[in-house]
């Protein structure tokens, strides 16, 4: 009858054990289902000539590492300290003030202390101190040093693939320590041992070979766009004629392939096609798509600097081959981090192109005169400002819109007002989310940096909670039913997030709304938007 001796308090305590009060170094790693992504497929790893391609499973004890894996990590660590001042400085100067601790969406959503940005970085710093600093060698654990072990490595893998490299913590850090930078380095080190996740490894292998993450072959890419041509014709009566791999075109257009294949990004893609048709008919703008450089996104950024460069090189190579004047980039988050902060440095200079000028307005894009790549929101904002687009805002009256700043355009570029200007000119109902959840303080979708897999959905739902919570607020307060964004990963990640947390909100892209509002010569009267949803005031009418 021992049960009777237990107090009710203890009974409940049996169901809910208080978390251990040990230090973080002594808390063992527990790889939980729903929180991790499947291991990289060895065929993908091999096809890129990346190290240690073999089948492995993170849940098994043996990760099938090379004998000398500790040396590989040590040498790789040292090499990166010597090559990146950012890494070296960020390893040294953190004072652990805790300002970043509660800024991470994964910490806010999961409550796991190791998701505090400072601790995520300490996972690497503890090894740095042990291997590369005098104090660490002498005082060991007292100064936060520890030896590299298999458990530490597993911890790296688990938590570095629970960071979306969104840079929100770096905004609040008094020294600008950027966890994204630390995660990037950590993932590079893991990749030296063949420890990637498949949601990243297979897309980069595909991208390398076919030009896009999904492995779409050139003819299929064209088929897809042809399919949209039919849809557009049905809705507007207009036949658009996208051009492919056209030599001598004025502008090469590159956007993430996600928008070509996955709903609801496909509607943004249709938006681009209709928009380019308008610009061609009215102003003779000559835009070409490419099947070789058919991917704007770059999962190489989530693997290593070298991989990023390998994949990114196609953009300039294709621009050179086709002889275009400059490149126009579609809506994508991390793609724009790569373009804004890495592309020209890695794969420039670009003397084979011209400094970008809008042929329609004559505006010089001074801020892009070296990379020669302009964001489509910048391009469109300029056209609207000069009154070059014929827009009927009321065609978006059925949408009550809020705007999600994607992490990279916000914190690695600063493109905040251009999309807002466009939104305000193409729709009548726009509402901002609370100020500490937008612009440079925007919350991540929870699925960036290659974490948009299916098996880690719990992680994604937790990570996206702060974003969803702010959407829920404007949904309840203003009846917002549309979450707009300028990122293809957002368009893949936010719909399930909304379905779980705020089911009445749909996700769309900026240029989907632009195309909805665009008045095109010779079009039929529009009764539906690009999705086939009736426009405001047309709900009762029969759709022909």
């Amino acid at each position, binding site marked *: 009858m021992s049960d009777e001796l237990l107090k009710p308090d203890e009974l409940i305590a049996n169901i809910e054990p208080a978390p251990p009060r040990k230090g973080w170094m002594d808390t063992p790693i527990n790889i939980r289902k729903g929180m991790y992504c499947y291991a990289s497929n060895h065929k993908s790893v091999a096809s890129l000539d990346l190290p240690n391609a073999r089948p492995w499973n993170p849940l098994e004890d043996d990760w099938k590492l090379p004998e000398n894996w500790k040396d590989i990590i040590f040498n790789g660590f040292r090499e990166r300290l010597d090559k990146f001042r950012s890494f070296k400085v960020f390893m040294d100067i953190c004072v652990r003030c805790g300002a970043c601790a509660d800024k991470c969406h994964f910490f806010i959503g999961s409550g796991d202390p190791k998701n505090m940005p400072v601790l995520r970085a300490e996972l690497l710093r503890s090894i740095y101190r042990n291997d590369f600093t005098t104090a660490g060698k002498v005082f060991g654990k007292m*100064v936060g040093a520890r030896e590299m072990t298999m458990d530490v490595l597993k911890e790296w893998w688990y938590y570095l693939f629970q960071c979306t490299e969104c840079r929100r913590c*770096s905004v609040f850090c008094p020294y600008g320590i950027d966890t994204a930078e630390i995660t990037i380095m950590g993932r590079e080190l893991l990749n030296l041992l063949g420890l990637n996740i498949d949601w990243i490894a297979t897309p980069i292998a595909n991208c390398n070979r076919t030009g896009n993450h999904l492995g779409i072959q050139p003819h299929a890419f064209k088929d897809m766009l042809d399919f949209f041509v039919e849809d557009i014709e049905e809705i507007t009566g207009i036949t658009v004629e996208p051009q492919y791999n056209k030599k001598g075109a004025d502008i090469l257009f590159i956007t993430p392939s996600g928008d070509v294949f996955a709903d609801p990004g496909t509607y943004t893609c249709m938006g681009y096609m209709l928009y380019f048709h308008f610009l061609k008919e009215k102003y003779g703008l000559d835009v070409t798509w490419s099947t070789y450089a058919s991917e704007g996104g770059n999962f190489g950024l989530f693997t290593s600097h070298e991989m990023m460069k*390998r994949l990114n090189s196609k953009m300039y190579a294709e621009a050179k081959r086709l002889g275009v004047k400059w490149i126009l980039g579609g809506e994508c988050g991390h793609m724009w981090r790569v373009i804004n902060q890495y592309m020209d440095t890695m794969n420039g200079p670009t003397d084979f192109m011209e400094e970008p000028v809008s042929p329609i307005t004559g505006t010089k894009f001074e801020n892009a005169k070296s990379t020669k790549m302009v964001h489509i929101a910048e391009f469109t904002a300029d056209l609207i400002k000069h009154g070059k687009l014929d827009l009927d805002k009321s065609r978006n009256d059925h949408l009550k819109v809020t705007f999600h700043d994607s992490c990279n355009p916000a914190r690695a570029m600063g493109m905040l007002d251009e999309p807002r200007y466009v939104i305000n000119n193409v729709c009548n109902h726009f509402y901002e989310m609370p100020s500490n959840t937008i612009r440079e303080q925007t919350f991540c979708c929870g699925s960036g940096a290659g974490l948009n897999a299916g098996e880690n959905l719990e992680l994604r739902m937790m990570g996206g909670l702060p974003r969803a919570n702010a959407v829920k607020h404007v949904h309840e307060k203003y009846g917002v039913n549309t979450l707009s964004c300028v990122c293809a990963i957002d368009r893949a990640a936010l719909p399930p997030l909304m379905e779980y947390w705020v089911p009445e909100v749909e996700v769309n892209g900026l240029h989907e709304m632009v195309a909805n509002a665009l008045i095109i010569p010779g079009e039929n009267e529009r009764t539906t938007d690009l999705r086939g949803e009736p426009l405001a005031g047309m709900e009762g009418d029969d759709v022909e």
Partner: protein
Amino acid sequence: MKNYLLSLIAVIVLALIAYVGAEAATWPQYVFGIIIPYLAMTIFIMGTIRKILGWARSPVPFRIPSTCGQQKSLPWIKQSKIDNPFTFFGVIVRMVLEVFLFRSLFRNTKCKMSKGGKIFFDLEKWLWVGAIVFHWSFLVVLLRHLRFFTNPVPGCIQFLEQVDGFIQIGLPGIFLSGFALVAGAVFLLVRRIVIPQVRYISLASDYFPLFLIIGIALTGILMRYFTKVDIVGAKEILMGLVTFHPSISANINGIFYVHLFLVSILLVYIPFSKLMHMGGIFFSPTRNLANNSRAVRHINPWNYPVKVHTYDEYEDDYREKMIEAGLPVEKE
């Protein structure tokens, strides 16, 4: 053992060593008053130079500022010139605000409305205030100490003393900065111990410098207001140190040596610890670079060619299918 107790005990032991040593005999005064300070200064200078050269040796391959405001794009869109600088001047302003006013940390500091409409701060919001008080008072105290190392004392130092000591209650006048320094350091310490989130991430090496600085400030206050150290004697020793004619003075008591010894420890500690953040901030690539890498090409000194899948290889893979689909090809 608790991290902070360990650090506290370490500081107390260090202080006792100096006190007992200096009070017991004359020869340790040479050790604590001359040898150790010189040694510490040497280690500090060499260590700091080594660290900074170490950072400087690693290149900045990419331009990766954290952009915290609107970029410069179209002429009619208002750029956030400080939080998202496009020019070198903008970067300077951003850095000045960062270094002198802890601008990023300030983003943390928002007063919030509670349900009843009452404005409140919680402890965490005071981090910026505490940090400002601590660092600025430290600087003032440090500058004030120049009076012990200069002869004649420069006018600006005398002026600083007058401002710092505007409260006169008896003699000697009270220097606010000393007390503010203690208050700031104690706040940062308490915060570290009390907020579980921060305690969880804190290492012994985070508590140690705080105890050390509190120890230094308290011994300083003790000397000035209570044991009334022989200022002339103290200045003699310190002037001797900086003019390389070291000597010791008979009228100086143990507290002075404790003070000097703890300062020496701090000097030695700085280059090997996170206290290098004062230099590191200037090297932080997310803050000290302009966001203009689309307009001005940033050069990576170790940029190397990589293996790419070229268009020709791509066309070789898919030529048939491309021709069939009507896509233009290079080689028919």
